[in-house]
């Protein structure tokens, strides 16, 4: 399967997961936020799915850019600019590429992180998207350094991402809406970190 088909497959899987976990992500956000994260993400990925044919005509960079623009203009809230900018940054690092190797995937993942950080100005440990994304990237790079194949590296990334989600239960939110709860945010899983873990999982499953 060509790289572009894999990217499209990743987008499809992520879209399906956002529909599937719509209620669960919303429930998580009700506990410590305003109860719309699942609604937001599923609305955005539904809009992406509606463009599926158009996307299939584009090259990898352009289709990622289109996904980013669609998320920016359909999601709203905090997750729209964060996920949107993440995809836009990812689109930039694969400009002109028709194939993607293991290093390209690493660059893309870092571009996602760069997008989230540029917009959200958070670091790890603040109970955000970054708490699943950053450990996933670290796990992936570690696996690559250990000469593991790309699929296996992404499996380790996925594992690290969901561990990151578990970790969010133990910390106080200091960014985003959950930060208003202070100590009361402890014990709850961060919805944004969770949706990001599903994104990592979607990449892994698409490989």
């Amino acid at each position, binding site marked *: 399967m060509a790289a572009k088909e894999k990217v499209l497959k990743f987008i499809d899987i992520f879209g399906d997961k956002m529909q599937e976990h719509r209620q669960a992500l919303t429930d998580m956000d009700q506990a410590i936020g*305003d*109860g*719309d994260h699942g609604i937001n993400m599923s609305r955005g990925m539904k809009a992406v799915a509606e463009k599926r044919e158009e996307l299939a005509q584009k090259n990898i960079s352009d289709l990622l850019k289109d996904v980013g623009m669609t998320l920016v203009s359909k999601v709203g*809230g905090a997750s*729209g600019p964060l996920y949107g900018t993440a995809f836009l940054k990812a689109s930039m690092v694969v400009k002109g590429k028709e194939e993607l190797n293991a290093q390209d995937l690493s660059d893309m993942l870092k571009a996602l992180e760069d997008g989230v950080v540029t917009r959200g100005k958070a670091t790890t440990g603040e109970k955000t998207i970054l708490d699943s994304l950053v450990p996933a990237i670290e796990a992936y790079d570690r696996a690559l350094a250990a000469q593991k194949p790309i699929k296996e590296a992404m499996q380790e990334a996925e594992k690290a991402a969901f561990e990151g989600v578990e970790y969010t239960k133990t910390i106080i939110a*200091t*960014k985003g*809406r959950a930060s*208003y709860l202070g100590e009361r945010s402890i014990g709850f899983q961060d919805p944004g970190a969770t949706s990001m873990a599903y994104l990592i999982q979607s990449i892994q499953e698409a490989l």
Partner: protein
Amino acid sequence: MKKFINEIENVEIEMFEGLSLAHPDVVTRLEDSNVFVRATKKEGKVALVSGGGSGHEPAHAGYVGTGMLDAAVPGAVYTSPTPDQVYEAIKAVDSGAGVLLIIKNYTGDVMNFEMAAELAQADGIEVASVVVNDDVAVEDSLYTTGRRGVAGTVFVHKVAGAKAEEGASLAEVKAVAEKAIANLRTMGAALKPSTVPAAGKPGFELGENEMEIGIGIHGEPGTHKEELQQADVIVDHLMEVILKDMSLDEGSELAVMINGSGATPEMELYIIFRKVYELLEKAGFKVFKTFVGDYMTSIDMAGMSITLFKVDDELKKLVSAPAKTIGFTQV
């Protein structure tokens, strides 16, 4: 969930349609969008744009009109509008004198409005912005996202709108908005949570004998739950927190807003105001003007907030200036 709605996914759009059909003399909805602008564009003045999630009606489309906003951009329920939508609004209302964005301090709102500002600035439009953070329920600290913007935002619309109507420059309008923000403090409490249509169930749970203190305006839980108390006790508590955070002197003048969350009867808001007034009078402060009603709601939450707004001569004049909008008309 019991609501007068049709298909859940059409809630926002049907509300937008109803709103523009009801008040064609005041607002115009840009075609197929969620951007509301004044029915008659006023040229040559600084334009004000605000927005946020839907569910806060009459905020924000209800404040578009003479003496207040030039455009409002309501997003999905409790969800910030997106950058392209705010960008459309900016382009529609700019008439060369620049545009002020009035943003409530939420990560999502700030990011989306900032992206919109970047897009408009790339077109050469002069855009400035202020971030309202009047909610004293949450601690303001460098290590958090800071305080939320809540009902006090309506006062920012009012005074900045009046200033712009006077023909002030973008810098002047921004300065008065910032002065207002510095003088505004709000805190609220709720007896019953709100239900986002798409979520289908209440945002938090409260027992028959519990209340939520320090609520925001998005149906999110407040700072803590407490055993239900009489109104005067609740007011005492909220006022203590608010006043501690303000620097008032004997004789300070205040505009006061008792804001209902959407399902709170006016009866209760006036009972609350009675106690607020008593406390202010006892402390030697003067109530300059009072606003009681649903100004910044949380769909169907039974809750309320108290806003104190310290006013000087300039702010008094601007608070009292005429306004003609759907949700706020004053002569």
